[in-house]
C-alpha cells in the first residue's frame, strides 16, 4: 500500500551560490534510499494515467514498483523497452506537463517524482550494468539517419537492434545534436550523451560526422549510388528567429543557438579555449523557454548579472518548472510582461575609432499586459501605451525559437514542406517521398527531446514495416 503521508522527496542539488560559478551538474540525483522511498508513494493505479501522459508510453507503475523492491536493473529494463535515452529524459523531460501532470497523487498533493526516479534508475544502470550489448545479426538492409540528435539516435538505436545496417550523418564534428550543442553541461553532462552514442556504436551503428546532407551529399545520392533503402530525416530545428527590431545585429547580440554552441560544443567557457565568447557584465535574455533558461544560466556562470525578458506573465513561461526554479535560485531576474522594442548601441561621435562603437549598451523595452486568449488558449500580450523604458546591458541573447533549416528541402526533389517550412509527414512519419521518413524539430519546429525521441521511435517502426514488405 502506498505511503500517503510521505512528502515528495526533494532533489539534492548543488548550492545555488556555488553552482552559479561552475558548469558542473546542478541536480545531484536521488540516493538509492530516496528512490526506494519515493517509489512507495506510487498508488499503482491500474489505469496508469501517468503512462498515457508519456510521449513514449513508458510503463511507469511497473518500473516504479521495481524501484520500490530495489530491483533497479529490472526497473531499467521496463523503461528501456520503450525509451532509448532514459538518462537523458530523466534530466530534460518536462515531467510536470507529461507523466507527473496526470499522477493521481498530484490531485491533492504532490505527484510522485517519476522523472527523478527515471534518472536514478538510468544512472544506476550506467554505473553497474556490464555492457553486453552483442551486435545484432545484420539483416543486410541499409538505412541512413540524418542528424544525431534525440530523434536520430532513437531511430538509429531501434533499427540497429532489429539488425539494420544504420549510418548516421552528422553536420557537426561531434554526435549528439542539441544534446551536445544546446543543452548545457550543468543540466545534461556530456559524458551521458557520449555513453548513449558509444552504445549505438557498439550495436554496429556507423556515425559519419562532418557530413552536411544537402551539401556534402544529397538524399537522392544516399538512396541511389550509396544504396540506402530508407532515410530518416532528424535534422532538427534551423535558423534562429529574431524580432526584427532595431539594433539586433550590433556587436554583443547573440542568438541563443550561437551563445550556447560556443559554450557547450566549443567549450568557450574554459580558460584557454580557442573559441571566443564575450564575457559581459549585464546580459538580457529574451524569451521564456528552456533555451532561454539555459542561455541565462550560462551567462550567469560566466559572471554576468542576467535578466530574462518575457512578454507574457510568469504563469505562461514555457520552460520546465525546475529550470525556472533553478534560474531564480541562481539570482536570475525575471522581467515578465516586458518586451524589447529596440537594442541600443554605443556610438562615440567624437571618436570613430572607439572600439566600443557598434556594441550593445542597452535595451529599450515596453510593458505588456495580458488580453484575450489566442487560438491556443494562451492570453495574448498587449503593449501598455507609453510605458517604454531603457535598461543598461552589454549583451543581448535572443531565445525566440527557430525556423526550419532550408538545406534539405532545397536539395531534395518532391519533399513537401508546410508553410512554416516544416517537413510534412503522415502518422507513420512518412514524408511525400517513398522511403524517406522524418521526425523531431525538422517536422514540428522547436519542441522537446522526448517528442523528438517519440518521433524517431515511430519512424523506426515504420521503416521496419516498409523494408520488411518491400
Amino acid at each position, binding site marked *: 500500500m502506498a505511503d500517503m503521508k510521505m512528502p515528495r522527496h526533494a532533489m539534492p542539488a548543488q548550492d545555488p551560490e556555488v553552482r552559479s560559478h561552475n558548469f558542473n551538474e546542478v541536480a545531484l540525483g536521488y540516493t538509492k534510499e530516496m528512490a526506494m522511498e519515493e517509489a512507495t508513494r506510487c498508488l499503482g493505479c491500474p489505469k496508469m494515467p501517468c503512462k498515457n501522459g508519456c510521449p513514449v508510453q513508458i510503463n511507469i507503475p511497473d518500473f516504479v514498483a521495481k524501484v520500490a523492491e530495489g530491483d533497479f536493473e529490472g526497473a531499467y529494463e521496463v523503461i528501456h523497452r520503450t525509451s532509448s535515452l532514459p538518462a537523458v529524459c530523466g534530466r530534460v523531460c518536462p515531467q510536470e506537463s507529461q507523466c507527473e501532470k496526470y499522477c493521481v497523487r498530484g490531485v491533492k498533493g504532490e505527484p510522485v517524482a517519476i522523472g527523478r526516479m527515471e534518472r536514478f534508475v538510468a544512472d544506476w544502470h550506467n554505473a553497474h550494468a556490464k555492457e553486453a550489448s552483442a551486435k545484432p545479426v545484420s539483416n543486410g538492409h541499409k538505412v541512413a539517419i540524418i542528424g544525431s540528435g534525440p530523434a536520430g539516435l532513437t531511430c538509429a538505436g531501434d533499427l540497429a537492434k532489429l539488425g539494420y545496417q544504420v549510418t548516421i550523418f552528422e553536420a557537426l564534428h561531434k554526435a549528439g545534436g542539441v544534446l551536445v550543442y544546446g543543452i548545457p553541461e550543468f543540466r545534461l553532462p556530456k559524458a551521458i550523451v557520449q555513453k548513449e552514442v558509444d552504445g549505438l556504436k557498439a550495436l554496429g551503428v556507423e556515425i559519419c560526422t*562532418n557530413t552536411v546532407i544537402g551539401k556534402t551529399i544529397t538524399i537522392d545520392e544516399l538512396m541511389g549510388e550509396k544504396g540506402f533503402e530508407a532515410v530518416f530525416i532528424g535534422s532538427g530545428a534551423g535558423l534562429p528567429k529574431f524580432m526584427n527590431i532595431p539594433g539586433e545585429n550590433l556587436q554583443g547580440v547573440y542568438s541563443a543557438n550561437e551563445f550556447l554552441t560556443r559554450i557547450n560544443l566549443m567549450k568557450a567557457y574554459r580558460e584557454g579555449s580557442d573559441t571566443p565568447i564575450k564575457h559581459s557584465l549585464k546580459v538580457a535574455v529574451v524569451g521564456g523557454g528552456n533555451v532561454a533558461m539555459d542561455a541565462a544560466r550560462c551567462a550567469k556562470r560566466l559572471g554576468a548579472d542576467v535578466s530574462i525578458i518575457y512578454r507574457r506573465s510568469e504563469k505562461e513561461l514555457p520552460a520546465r518548472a525546475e529550470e525556472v526554479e533553478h534560474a531564480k535560485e541562481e539570482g536570475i531576474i525575471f522581467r515578465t510582461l516586458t518586451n524589447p522594442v529596440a537594442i541600443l548601441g554605443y556610438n562615440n561621435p567624437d571618436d570613430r575609432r572607439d572600439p566600443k562603437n557598434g556594441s550593445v549598451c542597452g535595451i529599450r523595452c515596453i510593458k505588456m499586459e495580458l488580453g484575450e486568449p489566442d487560438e491556443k488558449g494562451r492570453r495574448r500580450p498587449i503593449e501598455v501605451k507609453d510605458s517604454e523604458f531603457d535598461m543598461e546591458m552589454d549583451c543581448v541573447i535572443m531565445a525566440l525559437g527557430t525556423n526550419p533549416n532550408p538545406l534539405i528541402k532545397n536539395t531534395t526533389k518532391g519533399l513537401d514542406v508546410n508553410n512554416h517550412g516544416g517537413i510534412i509527414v503522415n502518422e507513420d512519419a512518412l514524408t511525400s517521398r517513398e522511403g524517406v521518413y522524418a521526425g523531431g524539430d525538422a517536422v514540428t519546429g522547436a519542441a522537446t527531446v522526448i517528442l523528438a525521441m517519440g518521433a524517431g521511435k515511430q519512424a523506426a517502426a515504420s521503416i521496419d514495416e516498409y523494408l520488411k514488405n518491400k
Partner: protein
Amino acid sequence: MLMYRIARKKPLNATVTLMDIEAPMVAKKAEPGQFIILRVDEEGERIPLTIAGYDREKGLVTIIYQVVGATTVKLNAKNEGDYLQDFVGPLGNATETEGLKKVAVVGGGVGCAIALPVAQKLHAEGCEVHSVIGFRSKDIVILEDEFRACSDELKVMTDDGTHGEKGLVTDALDALIQAGNQYDEVIAIGPIIMMKFVCKTTEKYGIKTIVSMCPIMIDGTGMCGGCRLTVDGQTKFACVDGPDFDGSKVDFDEAISRGAIYKEFERHAYDEACNLFKKEVK
C-alpha cells in the same frame, strides 16, 4: 578517423600559404564561391575558409589562408602528411556564373585566392574576364600568373607602386569602365572595406556587383545565426543565403563592426600561440 590529410603545403608569401587537403567528398561537390569549415585539432575552434580550388579526381580541396590569428598559426604549424581534425563542406551557395558574357573580377590581398577559381570558371565557360588584383606591396603579391592565364585583361595594383601600377583596385576598375568596357557584372572579393568601395565605384555606372562575405560563424549550416548580415534592410545568413550577395544592398559598416567583436581575444590568443611555438622551437 583522421581523414583530412595535408597533401601539399606551399607558402605563397611571408604570411599566406596554400594547402591541398584530402577530402574527396568535399572535392566532389565543391564549386567556386563555396566555403569549408575546419578545425585544426581536438580543442580547435571552427573557422570558415572559402574554397580556393579543387581536384575532383584526386579528391583534393585547396585552401589558402593568411596567418592572422591563433588558429591560423596552429594551422600553419602543420606540414605535408599531417592531418586536420575536421574539414566539412562544401558550404554556402556557389557563385552564379551562368549567362555572363563579360565580367570584371576584383580581388584584394588574400581574397585573390577566392577570386581566382571564380575567374577560372568564368574563363572556362567562355566569358570575357578582366581581372583586377590589388596588394599592399610587391612582396605579398600572390597568384599573378594564375590570374594572367584565365584573364583577357589583367591589372595588378599595389598601394605603394612597387609592382604593377600604383593605386587601389577601384582606380583600375574605374579606368577600365571609363575606357568603355561594359561589364554584365563585377565580382569583388577581398577585405570588406575594399568590397564597399568597389560597390561605390560601380554604383555610379549602375553595374551589378557581387561580393563574397565571410563573417564569423560556427556551424556554417544555418543553425547558429552568428553570420547574419543586413542585406536590403533584412537579416540574412551568410552560410545559407550567401556567401555571395548583391553588394549594393549589403550594410558593410555593420559587417565590419560585427567582425571586430573578438578582436581583443584574437590578439591575445595570437600572441600566446606565437609564444608557444617560439618556446617549442627553442
